Structures are given as C-alpha cells and as structure tokens.
C-alpha cells in the first residue's frame, strides 16, 4: 500500500484495516503522532489529511486518500513552522505528550482561518485534551502564530490584486 506522508511516497506492508496511527508509528517509524485513547476522544493522534485535521486512530490506513501531514513534516529546512515557533516562544509544552496533536490541530485551523476568534479556537481545539492543562498558553500561541503565519497562496493572490 502506498501513502504520501509529508511529501514522500512510502510503501507500507500493513493490514488496510489498521488505523493510520499505528501504521505511522509502528510501520512508517513516525512516532511523533501519539496514541492517547484510540477512540477519537483526545486528539493526541491528530494529523492533517488534505488540509483537514483528522483523528488518525479511527482512520483505517486503507481508507486514506490524499496527502498525510504529521508533526515531523512541519519544519522545513531546519526552520520551524510558525506554529511550532509560537509554541516555543510561548513555552507551551509541559509533558508534551498531547502537543503534536495540538500543533497539528492549530495548523489546520490557521490554514483554514488565519485570524481565528476565541470562539473559533474553542471549536477547533476542544477535541484535543491536555492533561497538563496548557490551554492558556495554547491559546496565546495560536494568536501569536496568526500574526506570523504567511497567508495561504490563494489569499495572497487575492490581497495582491
């Protein structure tokens, strides 16, 4: 089975019913995506598939169509993604276990909605549990990233005209 993960095409020899989460972790060796609950209740496993934040623990790998993006693919050429940088600047992580999922959910949110309100953040991020309670810093980091993230290409085109 072939999957496009972070721009690379990868061959995986796994049961198509296996959740994407375990295919990423155990077969593709990408362990930044975490297991928390297995039932779409915590967001630790969140990845982005074709722009949509997705619980990889309940997505069969055989059903995946489109490009999968994981935490490992965010930094480019040694430069952090603006959301990662905001997470560092606000010193968000405590234990850090939920943070891959939080960051992926935030990236998907900001790509879709570059200037989210508090209510938008609540809606987009409430699927992601953090037992360490880092929420106030997550909110601050999302707002910070909103000021540093480049606009999506189509918006840029629009703003140039």
């Amino acid at each position: 089975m072939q999957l496009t993960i972070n721009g690379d095409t990868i061959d995986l020899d796994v049961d198509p019913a296996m959740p994407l989460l375990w295919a990423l972790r155990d077969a593709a060796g990408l362990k930044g995506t975490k297991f928390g609950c297995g039932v779409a209740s915590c967001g630790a496993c969140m990845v982005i598939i074709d722009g949509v934040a997705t619980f990889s623990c309940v997505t069969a790998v055989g059903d995946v169509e489109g490009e999968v993006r994981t935490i490992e693919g965010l930094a480019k050429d040694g430069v952090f993604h603006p959301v990662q940088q905001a997470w560092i600047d606000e010193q968000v992580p405590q234990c850090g276990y939920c943070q891959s999922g939080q960051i992926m959910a935030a990236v998907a949110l900001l790509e879709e909605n570059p200037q989210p309100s508090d209510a938008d953040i609540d809606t987009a991020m409430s699927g992601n549990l953090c037992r360490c309670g880092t929420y106030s810093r997550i909110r601050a980091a999302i707002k910070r990233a909103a000021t540093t993230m480049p606009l999506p290409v189509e918006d840029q085109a629009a703003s140039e005209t």
Partner: protein
Amino acid sequence: MGKILRRTFLIGTGLVAGGLAVGYYAASRPWPNPLEADLAPGEETFNPYVKIGADGAITIIAPRAEMGQGVHTTLAALVAEELGVPLSAVAVDQGPTSPAYYNLAVLEQGGPFSELDTSLMAETARKATRAFGPLAGMQITGSSTSVRDAYDKMRQAGAVARTLLFAAAQERLATPASKLQFDGAEIVAPSGRRVGIASIAAEAAALPVPDEIVLKDPADWTLLGKTQQRVDLVDKVTGAAEFGIDVDLPDMLYGTVLMNPKLGGGIETVSTSFAEAVPGVVKIVRLETQLGSGFGVIAENTWAAFQAAEAIEVEWGDAPYPSNTESIMRVFRDTIEGPWKGSAWRDDGDVDFAFGDAPPDSIFEADYEVPFLAHATMEPMNATAQFANGRLTVWAPTQAPTLIQTILADAIGIDSDAVTIHSTYLGGGFRRRAEADFALYAAELAREAGGRPVKVTWTREEDMAHDVYRPAAAGRFRVRMDVNGMPDAVDMRIATPSILKSIGKRIFPSVPIFGPERLLTEGAFDQPYAIPNYRVAGIEINMPIPVGFWRSVGYSYNGFFHECFMDEIAERAGRDPIDLRLQLMADYPLAVAVMEKLRDISNWDRPLRSGKAKGVAFTMSFGSWVGEVVQVAETQDGLVVEKVWAVADVGRALDPGIVRAQIESGIVFGLSAAIGQQITFSGGKVDQQNFYDFDAMRIDRCPKFEIEILENSQALGGVGEIGTPPAAPALANAVRSLTGKRIRSLPLSGEVEFA
C-alpha cells in the same frame, strides 16, 4: 540494595519509629559517581551532576523524571548558575539510574509531622530521615520535592566543578581564578588568553575537592529566579521527544496486556484460540504476578496486539472488595457514623469537653465525601523490556527507576546489578508512574520473547481500569460556635484507606506496615488556623481496591473537606469567608499575606453582577502557602468557571515561568476532577473506560488565570502539586454562593450542571 530498600520503604513512609535510631555515620557513606562507569575516552566528570566531553562540551545531569514540570530546566539551572554558564551553553541529560541520585526531600515529606511543626521531635525525625536518604538511594520523582532536594546539592556540584576547572585553568592562563570566565568550550582570561576546557578537564578532575564551597548570594544570580527557556521545548514541538511509548529498538516486538479488571482477582477459565489466530500475533502469555493476573500478548505490531487482547475469552475471578460503588461507599459512610475515633493528628484543647456542654443550637455538623479517581495520564502506561544473557534491560517512563530496578530483580530472580533501567520522557506522571506494574508486565513478556525486546503498550481502557486510584474518602465535621459567633471547637474525622499500606502490599508484600498514616489527614490537620479546641483524626478503612498517590495525595480530598467546612463555619458566623480565615490564621503571617494579596487581586470585595459568584479556599501543601479564588457564572448551557486567581508563597520561585505553569496545571487538574470525574464500580470492575466517560477540562471550558507568586517564606516550597488542593473547595464555595447549593460530595456535576 534489595534489602536496604525494603527496610527503607518503611522508613520512607515515616511509619517506623526504629528509623529514628540510625545515626549520621551511615549517611556519610558515599555512593560512587555513576558517570564514571560510562566515561568515553577523553571525558571527565567531577561529581554525579557534571560531565565534560572530549570536545570540552559541558553536560549537566538532571536526574529526575521530566513529566512536564520543567524539572530538567530548573535542575540544570541550579548547576549552571554556580558553574557560571548560560543554560543554552550546556547539554542536559537525565543520566543513568543510580542510588547516587537519592531524593531526600521525598522521604521527609512522608514523615509523620506537620510542616508547621518545628518541635524537637519533628526536627529529630527529619534529621534521621535525612540520614537515611543516602543510605536508601531512592531515586524518586514525587511529592513536589525534586527542586527542594536538589537545591543545595546541585548548586554545590556546579560550584565544585567551576572551582576545579578554574583552579586548573589559572595556572595555564597565569590569571587568578576569580577573573576567569567560561566561553563556550573554553575558559577565558580578561587578557583574551584562553584555554580549552577539554585540555584541562583531566587535570581539574584530579585536583582535591575543596573543603569549603561558597555558593553565590541569590542577589547575584543570573539564571535562578528568572524564567528560562525550557530545555525540552524543541523536542516537544517537533515530535522528536522520546516518550516511553516511542522507544524503538532493533528487532523489537510489540505487545499489550489484558489484566483482570476485578482488581486482585485471579483467572477462572480462558480460551485464547481466537486471539492466537489474529494475524501478526506471536504469543499469548499468562501473567500471574504480585500486581495482577491476566494475559500478555506479543505481536508484530501494536494494533495486532490490541486486537488479540480483545479476542481473549476469559472468565475472571472475583475481586476482594464489594462489587459496586453503593456497597463500597456504604463502608465509608458506616465508618464515619461508627464509634471509631481514629488517630488524632491534631488535638488542641479539649474537644470532647467543648462539645460536651455545648447547647445544641451552637453545634453544626456536616458529612462530606469524595470518589475514587484515576490519574489518566495522557500517555497510557507502557514499558519496553529485553531479557537476554541473564540481563534485563528496561526502557520506561518512570518516576521511580531504582524502585523498579529492585522489584524487577526480585520478580525475575536476578541480581539488581543485572537490571538496567533507562528513563524516558513521561507523558504525564501525577504519581501514577511511581508504580511498577507497567515495567513488571513488560519484563515478564520479555522473558517469553526469545531475547528480543518487547514494547508493551496498554490500551486506554486497560489504563483506566487498572489504575492505582486516588482513594475515596468520607468525613464528618463538627463545629461548636462560641457566643461571639466564632468557632470554639472543631472535630474532624476523616475515613479513607491507607495509601501506604496499599503500595506496600504491591511492592513488598512480605513486609508489614504499621502505624497511623499522615496521608489520611494531611490538608486538614496541618493547616495554619488557630481554633481553641481543634481535633483532626484519621480513620483507616480496610478496602482492598488498589490506591496510590495522585497529584497532591491527601491534600486533594482534605483540602476540599477542610476548606468547604471553613466556609460553612463562616456562614454560621455570618462572616465573610476571607475575613474569618484571616482572623483564624493571624498567627501565621505568611498565610495572612497570601490571603490579603488574594483578596486584593481578585477584587473580592467588589460586588459582582447577578449570575456570577466567587468562592475562596486556602491550602498549605508541600511547603507552599496557596490561596485561590474561583469565579463561576450561570449560562444557558450550565455553569462556567470564568476565572481563577491564585496567590502562592513558594519561598523562592527559581523559575517563575515554570512555577506559574505548574500552578495553572494543578488548578486545571483539580477543577477537572471537581467538576466531572469519578471512578465507580459495577460487578467488581471499574465502569469508566476512556476519555469519553472520564474526561477532563478542555480548552473551551478553561478559565482565565491570574497568578501571583510571593517569596516571603524562608523555606523552598514545592510547586508541582500545590495548585490542586484549593481548586475544588474554591469552586464548591463559589457554586454555593451562586446557586445556594452546598454540595458536599464530588463531582459537583452530580448536583449542578456545568456547560
């Protein structure tokens, strides 16, 4: 090692008076520096906390479990401060498992005295405990003690390393040591002459350690007392941080466990044929351990292991406790109704006399109750183990590596020298990871894996149903008001199971544990209030549900009981709850300063518009003095916690950013439990399975925070747990004020609706 630990377990729990007899001489026996064993050519070490690489790079060892509390950052800063280098100039490493990294403060915290108690007896006991620390060699992360324990010894380690390196450098540079500075991997003199650290490290390490080490005056600190960039951030935003669950070894197998959910029960009948037929399954192993009975699955991947575990058909033997919550809690209620007096941890004045002649209308009585709770760390329990050539190697997210080492050695029947424990990052601890079960099961499976490593990951369901729970507790609280409307006598009886006995039974079943337990009443007997007749007694309940340390331990329930009852007293007295507390805590200026600051920053005296209310609570715990105000509001969807103000006197905030983050974290943890969490039982099994029925606060319900840190106290207080105890009572007191409902049992959502 095994023997010493056994004995020490008792001492560490503060239960055996014989522990006081050991003299200081034992303490001076030094542990070898564990870094020496693993030095590569060209590397040098001065003490267990500092290593110099062949290239001159400095590595600081931070030998406590990093579970989010920022301990690697703060511990490294202690060394770096005295060494005279910025944190960015050093590497920070967890280091090996070794008794050299004993944690003294955790032993003291377990001792049988209130932290307010500076009597001769209490001090003598603390001293004896201090003598035991090095002897015991327990490397534990817990009790909010890591920094308190390390405060002197890691600063000294930094100062020693600097002194020796500069002594060696001053010859080469012909410049007095006091004028030298570090610059990357070099030491420079004001003249600009420099020498590589690597080239003098061996010489420096051979110099005699000076008898006297002078530590910097805090006024001269450049790192401590200031918020540092955490050393673990980059790993944690890139997915590179290796948690236990991420361990990856050549030729590794994967596994999981299915243990009897009737905790403590055996196995009646079983069929594993469906499970064995799951593709990718290597082996099903029956597990009979001192911590539980059940099955382990070894497979080619985690998913196959999970599916196979689900396919095991088994009839479980019964648990040794009543099968449902109703009958379990009846035991608690019957106990506080019964005649038992329990052990009084505080007994000021003459409580029986004070109540004896009290007119009935001067007495008020209330019963309180809290449920069992799970830890629900974000990373489910897991460990990886390999058993080959008579040696066991374990990679685990653990708070107690030396303890695990001893237990596994005993269980497998090998010497503890043949057991190596590698500690990884922890995806949350909250003290769940001071247990041994996850490592023991991995070790048992490794024995069956033909020398290959096995990574054993629990499902969330398994984690939820096989925790060591925060015990339920019940209390009966009585007050006699005097003619001036002030409390003249309080009588508090708290009934809950012994956590230490439960742990002792799991860890060293052959060693009996005796004596009254401080944890039953901590948070109620040791609070800075003066009431003429004041008794707090703990009654131990025999309830063989496995219970353990949970963030803030006894303070988590006694904080709720004591501080809700304090509000009830204020109500009876017709007094403002902060006013009343201030009056009762007048002998403790540190507490008074906290409450006054809290009143100020929370605008306590300013009336709120209708539909909103505030509640307050104060709990001193782990050497820190903490007050919190919670504001709740009524909305269409239910109650919402809008804002929390906290004031904490932690003595010294070595990293204010981390202290704030920890206090917030503790509050979210406490509010999550108070609002909606409970562990209940049916048919001997835990009912809750996953985050959908044991949830915690999410971002959309998270309040705003305003946190003020005070540094009036002379003692260094803990920070990891101190936010939790006042959160539940402050919320319950706010709910009372808003709705008129005095809710005396948790979770609050049993009686009011939250959004």
